[in-house]
């Protein structure tokens, strides 16, 4: 249902005037806010062309921003593939009939969902080298941290998806003599995966944002190269942060749009089981706001 048309009446003459007055008042307030930001920037000389100029030079992009973006995408992509595998393994583990598989899977998933990702990365990057007695690659520290957290979140999503496939599907599978593994592999997972596709893409947004945590342990991703190092060279931290934020927003908005399109597509073609589609809607709305 669209709230816009239900919450208030179609405006009559008086409501129209009131809405126009409110539009003007809030419009002016918004302009005032923008002007305040502008004046604040001006006061500190942040509009100086020397601070913005670096973004018109190609070397700024090829030396800082694009390599940073490439590292961000690389970490996010590798972590996504690994989290999908991890998520699938633990989702199936939690649905197992054997308590000795179900219980540890549940403990692992719940634990990594509850631990802050930064704490995990700090442990992997600073703590694990003490145990293995060799230095930890910063790339793998980021990727392993991302995989453990996002994989656990995906495991919960997969579990909900698999459970939402109507029980008649697995019963039919058993009736024609399939084994448990076959039912899971050939009946439940394919149907759940289709319904879970939007959730997976939404989780990709979380992953891309979480790679920025790599900055804290000095992984050379977009925030490290494109903001920190760039600003160290040109002294334009505010401008660099705005440009980097714009890049993140474009990338993530595109991913969100793809997720929305996938959701409408799976619902329209009606191939996804109905309950799963409902679970997807609820799931897509509550993607956890991890850093």
């Amino acid at each position, binding site marked *: 249902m669209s709230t816009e048309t239900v919450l208030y009446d179609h405006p009559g003459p008086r409501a129209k005037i009131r809405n126009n007055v409110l539009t003007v008042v809030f419009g002016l307030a918004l302009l005032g806010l923008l002007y305040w930001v502008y004046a604040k920037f001006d006061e500190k000389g942040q509009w100086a062309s020397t601070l913005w100029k670096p973004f018109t030079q190609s070397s700024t992009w090829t030396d800082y921003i694009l390599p940073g973006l490439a590292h961000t995408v690389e970490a996010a992509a590798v972590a996504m593939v690994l989290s999908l595998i991890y998520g699938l393994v633990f989702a199936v583990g939690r649905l197992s009939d054997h308590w000795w598989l179900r219980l540890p899977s549940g403990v692992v998933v719940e634990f990594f969902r509850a631990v802050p990702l*930064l704490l995990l990365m700090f442990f992997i990057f600073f703590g694990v080298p003490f145990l293995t007695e060799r230095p930890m690659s910063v790339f793998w520290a980021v990727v392993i941290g991302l995989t453990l957290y996002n994989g656990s979140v995906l495991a919960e999503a997969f579990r909900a998806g698999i459970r939402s496939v109507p029980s008649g599907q697995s019963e039919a599978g058993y009736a024609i003599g399939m084994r448990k593994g076959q039912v899971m592999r050939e009946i439940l997972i394919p149907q759940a995966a289709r319904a879970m596709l939007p959730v997976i893409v939404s989780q990709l947004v979380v992953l891309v944002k979480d790679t920025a945590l790599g900055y804290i342990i000095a992984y050379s991703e977009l925030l490290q190269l494109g903001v920190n190092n760039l600003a160290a060279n040109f002294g334009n931290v505010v401008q660099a942060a705005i440009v980097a934020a714009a890049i993140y927003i474009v990338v993530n908005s595109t991913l969100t749009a793809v997720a929305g399109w996938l959701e409408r597509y799976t619902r329209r073609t009606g191939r996804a089981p109905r309950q799963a589609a409902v679970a997807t809607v609820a799931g897509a709305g509550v993607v956890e*706001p991890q850093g």
Partner: protein
Amino acid sequence: MDVFSDPANVDVYVTGFLWILKLTAASALFALVLGVLLAAMRVSPVPVLRGFGTAWVNIFRNTPLTLIIFFCYFGLFSTLGVSLADDIDLNNYWLGVIGLSVYTAAFVCETIRSGVNTVPAGQAEAARAIGMSFRQTLTMIILPQAGRAVIAPLGSIFIALTKNSTIVGTIGLAEASSAMKELINANGDAVVPIFLVFAGTFAVVLIPTGYAFGWLANRLAVKR
């Protein structure tokens, strides 16, 4: 567990989690108020407000929190000279609260808006039919029902906020993750116990909190 028999180390641990607690409490309050206001804006009849709410959500939901916190310190404080307290720790604390609040508010807004969508159209139509204004419809009919529908998702947002508050360590606040890093670097022979104590504290607090929100959501669910 020798590490934690040293009172100085216990102090680092306690201070770290106290900062997490303070960051979470203040940010949750601001994010909730801001998020409800933004949600009201996004469903209001005034296009400027709708646009503002949409822009806020799209900007802050799609930017990494690390970048926002980074900007709060290096942009707002260092470059633009926004100082919030004389004490350096307190200043960083409030900068962190700003970053966490504006970021989390975007998620609160979207959750409440999706909660508004779960309220049947008939409720709003009935309210309008007895002559209620937009404000009355929203505050007396829609939001109370929507609020009960979004308890579970709001719960996961606040749990995520608690975990996210570790990111404020980036700008030099000695919260739990920085405290753990410090202890690990000083006690290389006990990294696993240190990690288990810090991670365990989060797990022991947050996992039951998650179940409590689920229980509360079931209990307060609107029967339809």
